[in-house]
């Protein structure tokens, strides 16, 4: 993948963790790519982290095991990290640095792109407003996904986030639009089984020829995780903005990415901020998440679904917290719902889609969409209050109104949220279902919907 250029230096000064330190060098740039040869002529790759007139600090992606001080050879490439981009990459599997690992030859392309990308000028961004139907009521009706959005799944260990992501990939489509789409899948430090699950899901649905996979598994070098999402987004940008495809990018698991970032930061001796993560975690995550979107005049789009597991299910942990500040909402999975055997176990209350209001309504989904979803939110949040009360004074002591709310709450979870992993519900069907469960409550309790909407939809679905 990398052309052989630049000066080669023999011998380094210091090795520590994933970093090596080299002196007596000349003309090296910040953030330059480095090729490292061990004494056994094994080739590794690295990147310059900081540089002065005579020395440089280099991070080594494949790890520093086996490097020696006198015989390690280091060659500076004179440019920052790049990968080739071509349509031939569809259907292929690469490692985090963009080198093929599916035993086929490397793709041939004259075009190489810097994996760090460049910030999109805010004035050329097109505001995302095309509704993507995922066929999942809990998402379509309550946290609508739109094309060009970045909507992460906040999960916990053992929760079915992978199944949910696979289902979204299988079912996602834009109504009335029949354009080319592609999937870019980046795995960072996930288990072999999980990668296999995604792969067979892509194969089953016949999507595999439209998928580019970048795999960095749990036993691969952790430092390679830092470049994996960037490689993936570079090809995604090519497919979307050069080739006009609608690209869905799955990044899993961002928690592993952040752990790798912390590992490097601490071996560099940086001052840590919260929980030992570096102070620039926010900016670093933003440089990944902000690479979603649409550009005026380009046909394609990049929609990102990053997945992260919240350590100890704690949503205030720096990783989900900072992610939530950057992404346009979040879908939160909940252990209690999972225990009640509700799939997908989406907890609607902390979940949110910020771009929802622009992607729904008349002409896109249905006029009552915004109101009925707000009504369900408000009512379901009241259910939670009633449940707490019921656990203290007992369900029998509740007022009639509160009992109705409990009934509504159960129907909401069992009928509305719960659905099969292969069940696809159209938006019309999801909205009707929403009215059906809302109709359990008396009319006077529905103050977020208009009188006209009540007249049109209330209790109409039961017949």
């Amino acid at each position, binding site marked *: 993948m990398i052309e052989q250029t630049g000066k080669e230096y023999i011998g380094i000064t210091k090795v520590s963790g994933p970093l090596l330190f080299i002196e007596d060098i000349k003309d090296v740039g910040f*953030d330059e790519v480095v090729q490292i040869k061990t004494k056994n002529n094994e080739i590794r790759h690295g990147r310059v982290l*900081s540089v002065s007139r005579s020395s440089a600090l280099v991070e080594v992606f494949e790890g520093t095991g086996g490097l020696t001080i006198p015989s390690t050879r280091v060659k500076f490439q004179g440019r920052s990290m790049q990968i080739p981009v071509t349509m031939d990459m569809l259907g292929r599997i690469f490692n985090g640095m963009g080198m093929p690992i599916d035993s086929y030859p490397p793709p041939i392309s004259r075009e190489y792109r810097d994996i760090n990308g460049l910030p999109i*000028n805010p*004035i050329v961004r097109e*505001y995302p407003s095309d509704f993507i139907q995922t066929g999942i009521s809990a998402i379509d009706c309550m946290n609508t996904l739109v094309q060009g959005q970045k909507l992460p799944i906040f999960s916990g260990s053992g929760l079915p986030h992978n199944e949910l992501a696979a289902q979204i990939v299988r079912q996602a489509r834009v109504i009335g639009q029949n354009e080319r789409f592609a999937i870019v899948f980046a795995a960072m430090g996930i288990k072999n089984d999980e990668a296999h699950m995604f792969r067979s899901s892509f194969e089953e649905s016949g999507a595999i020829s439209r998928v580019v996979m970048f795999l960095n598994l749990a036993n691969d070098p952790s430092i390679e995780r830092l470049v994996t999402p960037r490689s993936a987004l570079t090809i995604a940008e090519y497919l979307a903005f050069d080739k006009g495809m609608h690209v869905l990018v799955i990044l899993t698991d961002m928690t592993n990415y952040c752990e790798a970032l912390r590992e490097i930061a601490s071996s560099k001796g940086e001052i840590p*901020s*919260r929980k030992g993560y570096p102070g620039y975690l926010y900016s670093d995550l933003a440089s990944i998440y902000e690479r979603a979107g649409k550009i005026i005049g380009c046909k394609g789009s990049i929609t990102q679904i990053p997945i992260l597991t919240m350590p100890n299910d704690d949503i205030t942990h720096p990783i989900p*917290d900072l992610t939530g500040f950057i992404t346009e909402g979040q879908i939160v999975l909940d252990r209690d719902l999972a225990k009640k055997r509700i799939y997908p176990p989406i907890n609607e209350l902390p979940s949110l889609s910020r771009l929802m209001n622009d992607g729904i309504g008349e002409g896109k989904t249905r006029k009552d969409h915004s109101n009925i979803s707000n009504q369900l939110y408000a009512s379901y949040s009241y259910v939670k209050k009633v449940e707490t*009360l019921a656990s203290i*004074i007992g369900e029998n002591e509740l007022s009639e109104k509160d009992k109705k709310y409990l009934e509504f709450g159960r129907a909401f979870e069992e009928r509305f949220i719960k659905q099969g992993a292969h069940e696809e519900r159209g938006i019309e069907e999801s909205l009707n279902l929403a009215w059906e469960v809302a109709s359990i409550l008396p009319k006077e309790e529905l103050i977020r919907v208009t009188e006209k909407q009540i007249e049109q939809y209330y209790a109409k679905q039961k017949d």
Partner: protein
Amino acid sequence: MTEASKRIIGTVDMINGPVVKAVDVKATEMMELVEVGKERLIGEIIELEETRATIQVYENTTGLKPGSLIYGTGIPLSVELGPGLIGNIYDGIQRPLKDIAQCMGNFISKGVKVHPLDREKKWPFIPAVKEGDMVGPGSILGIVKETPIFEHRIMLDPQHCEGKVVRVQEGEYRIDEPIISLSAPKGILDICMLQRWPVRHPRPYLRRLLPETPLVTGQRVIDTFFPIAKGGTGGIPGGFGTGKTITQHQLSKWSDADIIVYIGCGERGNEMTGVLLDFPKLMDIKKGRPLMERTILIANTSDMPLAAREASIYTGITIAEYYRDMGYDVALMADSTSRWAEALREISGRLEEMPAEEGFPAYLASRLGKFYERAGRVQTLNKKTGSITAICAVSPPGGDFSECVTQHTKRFVRCFWGLNKELASARYFPAINYMESYSEYLDSIQSWWEKEVDPKWRELREEAMKILHQDYRLQRIIKLIGEDALPDSQRLIIETAKLIKDSFLQQSAFDDLDTYAVPKKQFLMLKVIMHFYHRACEIIKSHLPIYRLLEMPVLNDIHRMKTNIPNNDTKPFDIILQQIDEQTQELEKEHMSIL
């Protein structure tokens, strides 16, 4: 800052992200703006030691090599001021994003050099002085129509000395053409419209004034319960998803300020796009012109270089001060100061400074304090009254208000609107927590409300607030024993509080009518709710069960006041008040007859 400079002041020695160390440094000064390397990256000197210097670079340093030359510009980091600012969108160091897109395409690469203000455009200048007049620092020299309705007052640079006008002529000028000639002690000087001002220095004014009029925002929870004054400072802290940005957008849309400076500091790109999409379409209520014609945007999104994020809030407030000096009321929104503080932290970390709390540098509090003190109501050098209202969002990690940026902000702002996650989860917007929020401007603006709206305003507000407080305490009891176990007098408080919360405080940003409420409508709405409460109190004393009261048809009208009654119509309120009286009387009569 755009003219290429040839003066070499040093050589790059070490590069660590946005921090560059230089050696062989000579003939420079602290805070001088410099250009680094072949690509002429923009930076600022932030540390000097003998012949070494530390430079904070505002662009991506990828590929920069030790040994590259550093050029001095002779001026500190400054902004260009003059006609043409309004309606523009800039990055953190005032580079116009539209022009960048024109010359570089969809992505922002480095080393761009574009003038912040259009040099080609000619502006019609109408002088306000004549030959022979004496003018001094800040004097208004004339006016330019910057937009069809906005009068841009051209002022003499505050750093300029006094002089006598020797030549002035009406006509069309470019911003760098002389419009006036002055005879000053140093000789004859030509003055043009364009000015530069260093962003880290506050612009001078004559004296500070106390705030006395409210910034009317049309948002009920703010105007009626926690008002902010023109020239005041406010903080909006909230975890993610609590609606900081929507609240700031609402304030930018509906505030009765003359100029809005909106700083997107380290936030999402799509949010700025949303503003660019919405504002040209929305109309200013007072003037009937597109909102974009009073707005200046500064966008340093989270993926843009970090050091420029640090500079962006200074760029914004300097522009705000310039319009204040013309005698206008300016509202400045910054979203979010936490990202600014984080940029400060990262640069401080790379300088290997000793960290204080949570890795933030110890000077965080003093920098915040200095920034907020640049807001205020002042008498300008030209004897006009102008103000800057600063409203800044804070993004506390984990939504925890005890973290240091929120706490320091609380020390320097006088208005605190705490956003609450639980309210947001229930889609209760604006999710301003009325128990935690406060405003210190109530006393200063009371007379405005009494004069302009109704003498009973303060009384009504305090009464409603008391009910919310009582409700807050009762809610804790309800959590244990349920609502039905309470006596009717207390249940009435809960029901009234619910009315205040659902029908008054809650306000939809997406409803055409509800998105903005004039002060009179706000007052009448609250008056209706409190009137219902008073009448209900009387009846409940005669042991009428509360559920009968809640069945009154008028309650539905009260619920829908916000979305049904237009802003300038007061009649429907009279009807509702009358209906409350009638329907309660009827209930009373019925009840008595049963007894």
